[in-house]
């Protein structure tokens, strides 16, 4: 237990496109590296970030060493570790744990690593990046199925692919693209039958090969969610904005929804 004395925040924030957020301090930088290691491993330490560490955070020595290490071809993982060790935010054990996490990620099969990256992007609110990684994962699994001779393994991979396709359907639905989602479900059906896909189809079209009890359960769940959303704090706040002119209403309501989505992703 302690109280950390902080240095002043940077005058200009670092805008991370990968995370879709602005970083104002070294603490925030360390936090996102720890929180989203897979995004950080994905070429996060750019020249722009190094420059900001030097000029924005006034960590000139760290920026200098990062610049030279990067130029010498040092791995992204080591650059991240260097940042965590030099900015006074993490405990030694945390840095050690982070190192182990990176190692364990590197040991994952390619498609698993891509899938984990996709999930991290999703949690960080980067739906497009999450979707493209899911696509990559499907391709990687398909390639693996082709070369696998073990039938059980083939079956397991097939189910995995179906699951990933369902994830892609979920992302499409978040973007209100029902047509694209149905196309993906048709594609999934060609691979095999999958209850999750049937459920998704039912929620989109209202028709699916599901027992009546299951259908009722899904409809009830959807109704409950709708009720809780309408009675939620965000909905009330949006209703309160109704007197505003259209343009202002859309901007402010959009902000509330964005905030809610961010919180939802963080907690779910």
């Amino acid at each position, binding site marked *: 237990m*302690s109280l950390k004395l*902080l*240095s002043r925040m940077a005058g200009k924030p670092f805008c991370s496109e990968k995370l879709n957020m602005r970083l104002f301090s070294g603490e*925030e930088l360390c936090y996102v590296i720890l929180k989203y290691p897979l995004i950080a491993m994905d070429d996060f330490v750019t020249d722009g970030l190094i420059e900001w560490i030097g000029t924005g955070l006034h960590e000139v020595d760290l920026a200098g060493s990062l610049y030279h290490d990067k130029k010498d071809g040092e791995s992204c993982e080591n650059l991240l570790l260097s940042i965590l060790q030099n900015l006074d935010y993490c405990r030694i054990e945390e840095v050690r744990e982070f190192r182990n996490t990176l190692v364990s990620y590197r040991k994952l099969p390619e498609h698993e690593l891509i899938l984990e990256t996709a999930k991290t992007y999703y949690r960080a609110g980067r739906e497009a990046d999450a979707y493209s990684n899911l696509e990559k994962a499907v391709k990687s699994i398909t390639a693996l199925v082709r070369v696998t001779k073990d039938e059980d393994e083939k079956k397991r991979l097939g189910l995995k692919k179906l699951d990933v396709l369902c994830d892609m359907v979920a992302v499409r639905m978040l973007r209100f693209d029902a047509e694209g989602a149905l196309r993906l479900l048709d594609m999934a059906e060609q691979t095999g039958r999958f209850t999750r896909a049937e459920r998704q189809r039912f929620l989109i079209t209202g028709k699916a090969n599901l027992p009546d009890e299951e259908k009722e359960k899904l409809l009830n769940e959807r109704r409950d969610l709708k009720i809780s959303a309408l009675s939620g704090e965000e909905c009330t706040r949006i209703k309160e904005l109704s007197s505003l002119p259209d343009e202002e209403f859309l901007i402010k309501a959009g902000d509330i929804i964005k905030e809610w989505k961010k919180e939802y992703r963080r907690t779910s």
Partner: protein
Amino acid sequence: MASIGLDITDDYIAVHVEQSETVLIKPAVIGCEKDGSAWYVGEDAYRAALNGTGVITDGLLTLLGKDGVKELGGEQYTAMELLSRLLSMLIEKALKDENACEATHVTAALHTADKELFDRVAACLMKMGYGEDEVTVISHSEAFMYFVLSQDRSFYVGNVALFDLGDGVLSFYEFSIQRGTGRQHVKCTCTGEEGFRTEILRTDTGKNLGDRIMTETAKRHMEGKVFSTVFLTGSGFSKTEWAGEFVSYTCHRRKLMLEEGIFAIGASLAADEKIADYILSCDTRISSELSMMVEIKGRDTELLLIPEGERWHNLRLMAEVMPCGQDYIDFIVTPHGLNAEKQRRRAMLTGFPEREDRTLRLCVEIGTVSAKAVKITISDMGFGDIFPPSGAVLCEEIEV
């Protein structure tokens, strides 16, 4: 370019230009022609009023304390406007007398250390065009301290006493110095105040009574202590033949000095670097040290926020901290003295949002209320785009 010292009371205003031999002392009266065409201060204002051409007003410091308004020549003026006008006319005159062109720093000395009045006087001076860092407001005790420290060392080998006999009040100030190996600790307090109408000195009986009161007061405050110098100031000491017994008691084996405008002279020395060699203790200085327990680069450190002897008026500090697994902030108060025990004051962080550990960036702002109390405001700064500020604020007053 000069530093100006002001002594502002309801009765008089004294202006001293640094390094000058004289002090300009004028009644604290301002007046104008009935049609508002010309303004007068001090005796000129009285003269205009006696001639029947002008109107006057006084008691401006009290009026300023009440944030009051006065009508003059058919126009309404705030106390701040009137006092600003009066002070700028007097400063202009004092600078002209000394052939100095402008004042670089103005320090005003007031009788009591009251934050609100200090703020208003500072605002008054700033209204005259001085910047925030060019204005200081201190108490008479502090001004007297500067005055004594500017004298030859032989004056303050022992304690130093000051009797200030103004219109209606006799004040006694005691200056002492604690010598040691480190920075010397200088203390000045106004230890006694009693009513004394100088009108009684108009009759012989009154003079005898006045002398007796003064002698008794001197004995009460000075007996059993070693005083090397006694200063007398104030309009009551313009003549001293009425105080024979008092004078013979006070000048026995010590120096007795009669000095006009001591507080204004002291105030003009407020910016003197020599003062930095001492730890000052009076009603405008914080007598304890305030620090905060923090971790810097993995080490627990006591971060000094307010050193002992810091002037509390206009003191503003800010630090940004982040609790790691704790829901409180510990402040340490270290009173003056070798055997003084450190006191821990804990501010519980109640009402702040519950977030993941180390994502609560807090701004700790420290302002002072008086020499004995510090106001601490802790506010949530959020954590960048990840957690926006919640608006949670905690205000606590800590006794120091």
